[in-house]
């Protein structure tokens, strides 16, 4: 335990004790909890209890903007409510000799605190609709990547099984003889939108790329297309974000974003490895000579 935490705990205890002794325990309690909540939120990033760095995808940046906007609205509301609450607790607490008065409420006040939050909620729902649509609506995806999904990712207790189409071919819904398979190791070209087909073999899982702010449930029986664009070159985490069984904690994978040329080479190497028949000049050699990279039309 760091000395700061000890000092803070002792300080909080002292505030509560002082509150109790001056018959202001509840104002002290709620005041302290509000200060602690705001304080922890401000300190959290420096303890790495916050988002894992800046968003590394365009969609992620927009989702972060939405997140911060909602955070600001709720923070302002939270502080305002606490100011009112503590003021009321101090001002209207019981005093010896003063008889409490009964109020039936204020109609105007009720109308105001119903309409204001409703307006805020309506604003948020309208404001986010565009991002939500582009994240969820298949029709809005980039046409080229929509028609050429890079891989099929099948979640399974407790791993991610990945199926790529053979180089130069399209991903089919049914497995093909020349499909390429890996586990927990998803490679995609970086800097362009890619689409994966998400499936589940057993229970609910959730495909979560925390650094890209992409999260999508995998549902048994459904094929769900997910679009994302990695704005980095290198490796990032892929985790399961839905409690899927006892091994949920270890259901981790790795997303590797690489240059298009390197990605193509990765697939060709994978293909050569997978068609290894141990015969010199056999299938593996045939595959290498066939898979000459073709010029692809990019939109």
């Amino acid at each position, binding site marked *: 335990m760091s000395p700061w935490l000890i000092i803070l705990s002792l300080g909080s205890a002292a505030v509560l004790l002082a509150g*109790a002794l001056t018959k202001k*325990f509840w104002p002290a309690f709620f005041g302290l909890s509000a200060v602690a909540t705001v304080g922890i939120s401000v300190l959290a990033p420096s303890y790495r209890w916050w988002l894992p760095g800046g968003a590394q995808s365009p969609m992620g940046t927009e989702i972060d903007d939405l997140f911060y906007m909602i955070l600001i609205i709720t923070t302002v509301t939270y502080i305002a409510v606490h100011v009112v609450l503590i003021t009321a607790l101090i001002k209207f607490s019981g005093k010896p000799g003063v008889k409490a008065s009964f109020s039936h409420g204020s109609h105007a006040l009720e109308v105001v605190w119903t309409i204001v939050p409703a307006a805020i909620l309506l604003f948020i729902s309208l404001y986010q609709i565009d991002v939500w649509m582009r994240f969820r609506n298949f029709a809005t995806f980039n046409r080229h990547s929509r028609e050429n999904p890079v891989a099929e990712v099948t979640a399974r*207790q*407790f*791993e991610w*099984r990945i199926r790529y189409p053979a180089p130069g071919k399209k991903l089919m819904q049914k*497995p*093909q*003889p020349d499909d390429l*398979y890996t*586990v*927990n*190791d998803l490679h995609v070209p970086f800097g362009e939108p890619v689409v994966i087909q998400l499936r589940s073999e057993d229970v609910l899982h959730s495909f979560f790329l925390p650094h890209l702010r992409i999260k999508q449930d995998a549902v048994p029986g459904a094929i769900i297309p997910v679009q994302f664009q990695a704005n980095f070159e290198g490796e990032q985490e892929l985790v399961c974000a839905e409690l899927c069984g*006892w*091994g949920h904690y*270890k*259901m*981790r*994978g*790795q997303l590797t974003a690489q240059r298009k040329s390197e990605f193509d080479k990765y697939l060709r190497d994978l293909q050569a*490895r*997978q*068609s*290894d*028949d*141990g*015969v010199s*000049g*056999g*299938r593996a050699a*045939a*595959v290498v000579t*066939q898979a000459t990279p073709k010029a692809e039309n990019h939109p």
Partner: protein
Amino acid sequence: MNRSRQFFGTVAVLVGVALCGGCAKSPEPKFVLAKSTEEIVPVRIGDEKTAVNPVEAALHENFGTPNSLVAWELFPLDYGKAEDDLDHPERGTEGWKLLHGRNLYMQHCVHCHGTSGDGAGPTAKFLNPRPRDYRLGKFKFKSTAGAIRPSREDLRTTLEHGIPGTSMPSFVLLKDDLEPIIEYVRFLSMRGEYEFRLYKGIQGILGRKVLAKGGSVPAEAPEEARAEFNDGWKDTLEQVSTDLAEAWTTADAPESIINPREATILDDAKVLADPKPRGSVKFSGETLPADRRVKLDHKEGQYWAVKSLKDEELGFVHHESLEARTGIDPKTGKPTEKSLKRGRELYYSQAVACFKCHGYGGRGDGPSTEDFWEVGNDSPLFQYAGQKYEVRGLHDDWDNHLEPRNLIRGVYRGGRRPIDLYRKVFAGINGAKMPGFSTSLTNDSDLWDLVNFVTTLPYDQSILQGPLPDPSVQPPAAPVNPQASN
């Protein structure tokens, strides 16, 4: 009044939190003894005053406990020599790799495979198929021939890819940590097999009766009998440990790996031309020693007399084209029609008889799955060898109910590369009922035809259609619905 209620409330909450936290200490992990070992009655070994279970004593002395492992130099294990590595100060201790492997095993593997590698961890009973019990020294998915132990590379492949169709996940992201885990799995397998083999050794010395509880106790046996036991025991200990060390050393030898046979020796081949030796040849899967390595000219489709470098006649070689040998059309990279046809012929033949287990339709529901099978000599239930299992269907060497693979699903537990499937057809699957066909099908192209047939099945079931090659092989008639025939 109000103040005291507040006070007691706070105390109650604190006590509740403390109770939830608890103060229990988890029990110390220990290696569990096999049931057979527990049956052994204590014996006085050498000049010892007290009688001990000899197998338990030998295990403890040579392998230790999970918390204090013993590194026995005799075995081909990389225990981890102390290193002067500033980046990894934890590698400074002798045996760091085994310790590190143990820690990782306890974190990632133990809940299925168990502390002693007996495949009986806490989650094991919920899994189908059951996690592997390493103690028999048998591993199904490997590149080595027959009963040879898996190489380190084989264990790595299983860890990296997982086993699709089972609960074994992939650990590919552990990267550098895989090596220590592999060593620890080998350690556990050696320990387990050592235990079973010692039991069989002691059975050989003492006979069955003395092992049973309530039998005569050798501790009280006459002096000569004890001396006889001690001699036999000493030999057994030495024999078993050297055997095991050798078996695991062989596993990593390059000769143990199955590679496709490069050419086929034909007994009745004719010499068509004067051989001009060039290139090397493998005979029936065995690589010849360097001084007998032969050379031949790469002329396809002809028979060549093969001579060793010492000019000694070895036999004849039919050097086929790549297409004829592997049944793959070099232009498309796909199996030729001829190869698929031959594969089907073999599938339904009486000699190879794949259909008996894998079924007439390739769905793993052949007639063998309807039979009652006998307990084998090598199974953990070897005491009951010869008796029949209570459950219909095949059983593996671990006594688990075994379903022949459904070939239509396209899920390959031992890997989906053509070479993986070739090895399965060549050598069978150790511990399971799948036999190898390396001796019955001496022509390599037959093995490849089977591989091609099996790899095509998931995508094209029409290759099953057609008249059956052997009239004695007939699928059972479709059950007649009595109501329909009415």
